[in-house]
């Protein structure tokens, strides 16, 4: 069964109740999380530690699992290793039979979802009550959870009432959530007392002591584990942590990241008892562990922060952006890693690689990278159109050369109805999108032409110099941004030399063309490593290219070759924000508003996702705001929705526009000229606003040259 993703996206975007629920939930949790994380003075150190603990534990897995087994058994508990879902199901079913169990209470567990535990036991004639309220609602509605933490967040009050009407046989279920919850409490309390078996998941199993640690708010886990005679705890083996000290790290991170609480109402340290059956599930995890590219998915502690912060998830929810069990970008990695690449291939495309998830992930999993890997593997499963599109879009550097060479003819062709039709037919691109226009001459050519005349008169007075990385977008589509950059840098006394680079590999990466990206990275490494090691600085204009060099090369090159790129490549805005440079700029701009100029130039600034992911967004905004004569309002939206080729693909065009409109609504509510650093962001804004949108460096050039004229220089 193949999914019709565009149709699913369409109905999610038009489901008003869903939109409202997603909005309320993700915003509220996002707010609380930021607050709770803000209270941790050692947050970054904790994340680092959490990551290291996970990495170490998974490396020496057998040792920790053995220790756990010893400690559980020493207290009389049983430990069972289940190779797959089948084995786990069989064990639990036989156990129920052997104990004459007929009724089971169960708490929320993604691992149980993974093996279809509830359905299986019900099919065996056992009664199973989900006891987490949200999970119970989902169970009664015969649906799947749509969020790791809030399984029923997609259900409206009306829908919940309907579920209660059928469940408790009520004519007119109460309107008040409080009353509904009270009814559920009473009904489920009976179930707790009647059930002979309780099934829980596990958040952390402490090898050192044998404690099974579970984190919850409702209290149903405590009841499930302790009221019935038999306790089954089902856990994926990745949940083992070596010691109580290690556990402390995760207990500080999980509730804060998950719900924005310092601690949840209950954190239980269950001691194994003789009626405990601890089922350690593999079910593909060993395969994932042996997969070096996806392994870090195993570090996930299922807090859900990545979902709440993901623009695509916020827009369509976990049923659309998800597989049969796991959701979001991390869910794609899990689905591909332990289950089926094919299933992951059906929804991983919703990841726009914006990187917001990694920013909030308490174990800093590089989820966009995992999705790049999946993309590369899934390419062979794609239909021919998409495969072709990947090749065309991923090799932009190759064909853009011809595009520029034949411009304006190439533009006429691509912009024509026939051109768009062909793009739609052959590549499944959105015919409503205007293709970018090739420029002739290219930036490189224009920079060379002007250099002799213009450069001599420039005021380059210092010895410092940078190499300007010439990205494909500026070079072929927007030379004026490149030229503005050159002029601004030179006016500030910086010697600029164009780098003789090849494409950074960003386009190839975003299409999953890993081999090609790798060979481009190698070529750039050959060209620049000696200089970078000698202390040279590379400045880039397009943030996604800067990010490719700075953080993606880590995956493409040996560590010692990637590090110089990580350390010595800067976004041009970041470079300008350096104190010594920005001071120079201020000195050149004496005409700030306080010096008698009526009003500053007003701009609205939209930062690029990758600048946020690299952690340079804030300093860039602060820098722009400090520029005399400039009034800057930053709009805070996660992603413009264009994300490279994402917005061009027919599959995602509706979602892309939806995300874009979240941005334009904010832009239109303000006064000022919209600006953006990213080529895609500018394209998206141009398409939706119907005007050319500039890079902030162009604005700087403008006010610099105005200042120059005024001073009579």
């Amino acid at each position: 069964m193949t999914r019709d993703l565009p149709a699913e996206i369409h109905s999610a975007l038009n489901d008003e109740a869903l939109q409202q629920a997603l909005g309320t939930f993700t915003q509220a949790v996002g707010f609380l999380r930021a607050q709770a994380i803000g209270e941790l003075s050692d947050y970054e150190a904790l994340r680092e530690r959490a990551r290291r603990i996970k990495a170490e534990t998974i490396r020496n897995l057998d040792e920790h699992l053995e220790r756990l087994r010893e400690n559980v058994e020493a207290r009389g508990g049983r430990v069972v290793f289940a190779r797959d879902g089948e084995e786990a199901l069989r064990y639990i079913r036989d156990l129920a039979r052997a104990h004459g169990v007929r009724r089971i209470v169960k708490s929320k567990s993604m691992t149980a979802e993974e093996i279809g535990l509830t359905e299986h036991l019900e099919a065996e004639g056992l009664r199973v009550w989900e006891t987490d309220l949200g999970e119970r609602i989902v169970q009664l509605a015969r649906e799947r959870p749509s969020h790791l933490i809030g399984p029923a967040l997609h259900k409206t009050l009306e829908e919940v009432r309907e579920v209660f009407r059928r469940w408790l046989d009520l004519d007119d279920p109460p309107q008040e959530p409080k009353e509904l919850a009270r009814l559920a409490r009473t009904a489920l309390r009976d179930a707790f007392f009647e059930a002979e078996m309780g099934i829980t998941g596990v958040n952390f199993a402490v090898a050192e002591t044998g404690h099974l640690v579970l984190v919850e708010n409702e209290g149903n886990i405590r009841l499930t584990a302790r009221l019935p005679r038999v306790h089954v705890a089902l856990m994926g083996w990745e949940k083992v942590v070596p010691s109580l000290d290690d556990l402390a790290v995760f207990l500080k991170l999980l509730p804060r990241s998950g719900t924005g609480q310092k601690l949840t109402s209950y954190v239980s340290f269950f001691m194994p008892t003789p009626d405990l059956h601890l089922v350690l599930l593999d079910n593909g995890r060993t395969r994932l562990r042996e997969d070096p590219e996806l392994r870090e998915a195993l570090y996930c502690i299922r807090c859900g922060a990545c979902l709440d912060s993901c623009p695509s998830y916020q827009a369509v929810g976990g049923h659309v952006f998800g597989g049969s069990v796991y959701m979001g970008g991390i869910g794609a990695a899990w689905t591909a890693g332990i289950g089926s690449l094919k299933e992951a291939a059906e929804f991983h495309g919703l990841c726009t690689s914006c990187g917001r998830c990694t920013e909030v992930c308490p174990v800093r999993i590089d989820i966009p990278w995992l999705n790049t890997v999946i993309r590369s593997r899934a390419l062979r499963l794609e239909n021919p159109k998409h495969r072709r599109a990947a090749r065309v879009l991923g090799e932009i550097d190759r064909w853009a050369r011809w595009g520029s060479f034949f411009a304006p003819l190439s533009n006429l062709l691509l912009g024509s109805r026939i051109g768009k039709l062909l793009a739609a037919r052959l590549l499944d691109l959105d015919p409503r999108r205007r293709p970018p226009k090739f420029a002739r001459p290219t930036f490189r050519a224009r920079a060379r032409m002007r250099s002799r005349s213009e450069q001599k008169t420039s005021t380059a007075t210092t010895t410092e110099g940078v190499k300007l990385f010439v990205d494909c977008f500026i070079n072929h589509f927007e030379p004026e941004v490149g030229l503005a950059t050159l002029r601004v840098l030179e006016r500030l006394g910086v010697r600029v030399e164009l780098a003789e680079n090849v494409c950074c590999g960003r386009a190839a990466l975003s299409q999953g063309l890993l081999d090609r990206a790798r060979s481009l990275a190698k070529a750039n490494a050959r060209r620049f490593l000696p200089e970078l090691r000698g202390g040279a600085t590379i400045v880039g204009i397009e943030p996604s290219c800067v990010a490719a060099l700075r953080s993606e090369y880590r995956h493409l090159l040996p560590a010692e070759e990637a590090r110089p790129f990580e350390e010595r490549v800067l976004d041009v805005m970041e470079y300008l924000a350096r104190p010594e440079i920005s001071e120079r700029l201020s000195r050149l701009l004496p005409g700030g508003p306080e010096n008698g100029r009526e009003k500053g130039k007003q701009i609205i600034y939209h930062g690029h996702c990758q600048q946020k992911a690299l952690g340079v967004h804030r300093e860039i905004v602060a820098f722009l705001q400090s520029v005399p004569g400039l009034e800057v309002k930053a709009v805070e939206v996660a992603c413009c929705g264009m994300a490279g080729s994402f917005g061009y693909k027919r599959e995602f065009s509706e979602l892309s526009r939806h995300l874009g409109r979240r941005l334009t609504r904010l832009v239109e509510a303000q006064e000022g000229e919209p600006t953006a650093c990213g080529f895609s962001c500018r394209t998206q804004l141009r398409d939706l606003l119907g005007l050319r949108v500039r890079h902030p460096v162009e604005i700087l050039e403008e006010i610099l040259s105005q200042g120059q004229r005024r001073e009579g220089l």
Partner: protein
Amino acid sequence: MGSKQAAEGGDERIERFVRELSQVGGAASVLDPEGAPSRIAALLKERKAQKVMLDPGSLPRELPLKALRDRLTEEGFEVLEGFGEDVSALRDAAAGVTGALAAVADSGTLLLGGAPRGGWQWASLLPPLHIAVIRADQIRPTLDEALRALREHSQEGGEEFVWITGPSRTADIAITLLLGMHGPRELHAVILS
């Protein structure tokens, strides 16, 4: 806690604990041990409780237990204690009174523990009201210290623990925060100073 400074630090800590606890929906009273029985009785009366679970094993020694028992019976409450594994008798209890191993000022957390199916477990989980009686000096500043306390207790011989931070809650219906989902709706700390 001899010096004046330490005592002051203690006061601050109590304040912090009370503030944090109230932020997560709990409440607290600070009083001397002699005053505790009547405060507890009053709390129960306000809620028209009839059956009360008592977990004497976990209660601090400073709490005059006999006075508490007498007071509760006088007031007409049915006091349940020493309930072992048979919990069905506890189904309609309106309140549970326990002690705690420690508390954390930083997060308003109570640390309880003992035998997995001990009285502390039920009394802190089944009824709609949970009253936890602690000594002021049991309040530790941070989670790390509470974890240390847990480790000490753990070494004494495999125990079960729970950290309780506020009453039971859910937001699963229409993203509305509700207290008292499966566990207590009210959590009241009685702090003996």
